[in-house]
């Protein structure tokens, strides 16, 4: 599904990723953990194609294609989805219509029939249950006036509607209370499938109590310094990051 080789990337003049390697197969859930400033969010943004993140070396292959060659919207058409750490508010652009445009842009680019209003609303109603979205949020401007938890829930809701092949969740757990965390985690779990790969970028082990990853990686100073199974996350929770950073 995704094969990252020796990835180097910088933001402005600062090199953040310094030779990152990662291989993700279809259906797998990978957690990327690490201290602040280790490059977790940079990795998420590079994968989604945000401006200002310059790849200086290495490659990212997604479903046999060079992902770095694609514009952000082309990545979305190809099934890549980023759940933002800080979802932006967009006054004047309605949530539902953004979603409809998104769904149809993806379908159109895959050569599928676009959904009409009725088909779309049926889809939306079904997916709303997954993250217990309140209906009034749907008809508001994108994220405008949403609480932190509502914004994160909206990201997962969008993910449910768009049904990506590769979902990158950038610190989706940050700023959530325990109830909201459970709802978001349940939503993500319900979207697990043999065809869908998920990258969970997180600072805390807490999220992994609810979403059990297949693999856990520790990112430090722009590189993955340790990989393991779910037990690695528990070890990090207990001992912190220092021992492992020092050992590397």
């Amino acid at each position, binding site marked *: 599904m995704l094969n990252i080789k020796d990835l180097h990337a910088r933001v402005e003049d600062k090199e953040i990723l310094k030779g990152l390697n990662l291989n993700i197969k279809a259906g797998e859930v990978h957690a990327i953990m690490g201290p602040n400033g280790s490059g977790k969010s940079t990795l998420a943004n590079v994968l*989604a194609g945000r401006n200002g993140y310059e790849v200086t070396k290495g490659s990212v292959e997604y479903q046999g294609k060079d992902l770095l060659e694609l514009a952000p919207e082309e990545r979305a058409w190809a099934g890549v989805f980023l759940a933002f750490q800080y979802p932006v508010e*967009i006054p*004047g652009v309605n949530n539902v219509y953004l979603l409809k445009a998104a*769904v149809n842009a993806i379908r159109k680019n895959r050569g599928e029939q676009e959904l009409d209003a009725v088909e779309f609303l049926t889809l939306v109603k079904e997916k709303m249950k997954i993250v217990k979205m309140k209906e009034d949020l749907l008809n508001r401007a994108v994220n405008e006036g949403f609480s932190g938890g509502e914004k994160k829930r909206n990201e997962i809701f969008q993910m449910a509607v768009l049904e990506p092949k590769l979902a990158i969740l950038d610190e989706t757990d940050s700023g959530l209370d325990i109830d909201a965390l459970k709802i978001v985690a349940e939503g993500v779990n319900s979207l697990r499938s043999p065809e869908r790969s998920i990258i969970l970028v997180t600072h805390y082990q807490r999220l992994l109590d609810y979403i059990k990853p297949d693999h856990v990686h520790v990112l430090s100073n722009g590189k993955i310094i340790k990989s393991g199974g779910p037990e690695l996350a528990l070890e990090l929770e207990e001992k912190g990051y220092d021992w492992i950073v020092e050992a590397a």
Partner: protein
Amino acid sequence: MSQENMNSNIQNYLNDFEKLGDDVKSDWFSEQRQSALSLFKETGFPGTRQENWKYTDTRPIAKNSFSNTSDQSISITTDEIDSIRFQGLDCYELVFVNGIFSKEHSRIDGLPENIVIENMAAALEKDSDLLKKHLAHYADSKVSPFTALNTAFIQHGTYINVPKNTVIEKPINILYLSKESAQPFASHPRNLIVMGEQSEATLIESYIGLDDANYFTNAVTEVSLSSSAILKHYKIQQESLNAYHIGNLNVMQGKDSRFESNSISLGGSLVRNDIHGQLAAEGASIVMNGLYMTNNNQHVDNHTRVDHLKPNTHSSENYRGVMNGKSRAVFNGKVVVHPQAQKIEAHQNNANLLLSDDAEIDTKPELEIYADDVKCSHGATVGQLDQDMLFYLRSRAIDEETAKSLLTYAFADEVIRDIGFAPVRNRLEYLIVGRLPDAELIREFTNE
């Protein structure tokens, strides 16, 4: 341009004035016209050395030899007008073609007996004390040479008189339509709206070019609001892209009266809109909403001025602009709080979106405050499309062009959505989305 050329073009107006001849019935009006002409003759067109015209060069207008004697032969089909009318809106309607009133296309029958809505020329013919009392009393020829020019050429336009305690339920729709004529022409529409105590009306003034004709519209609208009168005013400027448009709106407000202005500028090659509100009695309030969207080489200048002459008066202003191509826009919002005008509130905001590197905006709020117990605020912003929003939309599969259009529309819609009158609001949403690429998709976002 040399001084000599400038003068020869003034001469053109002086000659045409002579041709107006004997249509004037009353002495007071004749004198008014004559003195306005003398003023114009003295000042000529304004130059950029005048502070008020610093950013807007009127030489392109001055150097043209427009004909001021209208060509009566230009006609228009019902189909042409129907494409412009508000579908399904029951309204009184006055239609002017190249500045001349079209009785055939206008719909002002069945008016309640006490309400007057008629062509200015007809009102002048009848003459009345009311007309004499109000006409040219609020638009000052000394302030703008264009107002002087308009006053000298007063003939066609709209005269409305709503007596006290009268509410006109149907909106009044005035269409100033222009199309290609044998010779480039100037029209000087003159509107006077006199609203009695506790009267209420909604007025839409549209200036529309039906083709890409070269012409000059020089419009003046005067409004007098007696105590507790309410007028909602919409101006939609969609002149031809080869046309010049100068518009002056002057409002005199009595006690507890309310004036709402919505000024939308989309067309024209060189455009200047002036609004002057005088809050002359306690409790008077004025709201000014504005939107200007420019592209290519368009130049659009919006000047507003509010005089808080008495205590407890309110003004609020919200203008937004979107500039693309090599176009240029100017915003100047002046608020003057006079010495005795305590406990007033004045708020002003101007936000601008530049879509290209070559587009330009000059924005200037001007507050002159001579009272000490007042609440005033103002703010101006100039920005480009928000990169975070753009990336968010693109990451949600929206292609770059559509994402830009969507954000531009959302910016303009901040003004449009505040428009209370649905037919105008819907028309504007349609017009504005229509100017952006991928209009169909964006329309889907708002009109389902």
